[in-house]
């Protein structure tokens, strides 16, 4: 019974994770400028990747596999802001100006 429940839970995680990944991809295409696209990439990097990896962890149960999945997840969460920040700073130095809404604060 509990096995079936965990199975269902992991399916839900995998499917929602995939959904958030696609949402991030759509955002990458739809959003108008580079700096808004960072946010779309953030959606796939955090919740998309996180939910898919959690779904896989639930499938794997308690084993070395789970630890490797946790490591992948943790590494992703640590590096993705660093990469995004480096990209934003490089883009600013490369004279890419963010397109802002008209009445900025």
């Amino acid at each position, binding site marked *: 019974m509990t096995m079936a429940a965990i199975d269902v839970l992991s399916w839900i995680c995998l499917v929602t994770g995939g959904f958030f990944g696609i949402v991030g991809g759509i955002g990458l295409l739809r959003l108008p400028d580079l700096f808004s696209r960072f946010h779309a990439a953030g959606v796939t990097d955090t919740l998309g990747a996180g939910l898919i990896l959690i779904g896989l962890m639930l499938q794997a149960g308690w084993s070395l596999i789970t630890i490797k999945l946790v490591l992948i997840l943790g590494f992703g969460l640590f590096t993705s802001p660093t990469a995004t920040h480096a990209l934003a*700073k490089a883009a600013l130095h490369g004279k890419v100006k963010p397109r802002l809404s008209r009445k900025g604060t």
Partner: protein
Amino acid sequence: MPHAISLAFICFALWLLLSGHYVPLMLVLGLLATLFVVAIAVRMEISNREGQPIHLLPMVLSYWPWLLWEIVKANFVVARCILTPALPIKPTLIKVKASQKSRLGKVVYANSITLTPGTVSIDIKGNEIEVHALTRTAAQDLKRGHMDRRVTKFVGSN
């Protein structure tokens, strides 16, 4: 020195978990590799309080779950923005004050900002972090400084 020891411990634990070899010869080789890595880290002067913030470990348990929940909430907001056909985004650049004193604290704060979708930290100048926010509400939430206070509590007073 305590940081070098903790680094060695973490590296060797990681080696044990990832390799899956538990023969004496392999264990000795793993230990040698660990010591080599620690020696390099000590020589590069990155095995210190900043590069290895073990003093933050107890507070991690209260900060990370809070941050994860914030990330989940922000994700839903951004996903709804992307999926709405009219694309209701108002990109703004704001400056928020970082009340942390150490560089480590500022890095934790800036990375937490970037990790939550909807806000990306672009630049740090002194005590101010320049943030690009996707929506007006995300910018206002950040300006209210809740996350700033949480991070300050997390890294402590130093």
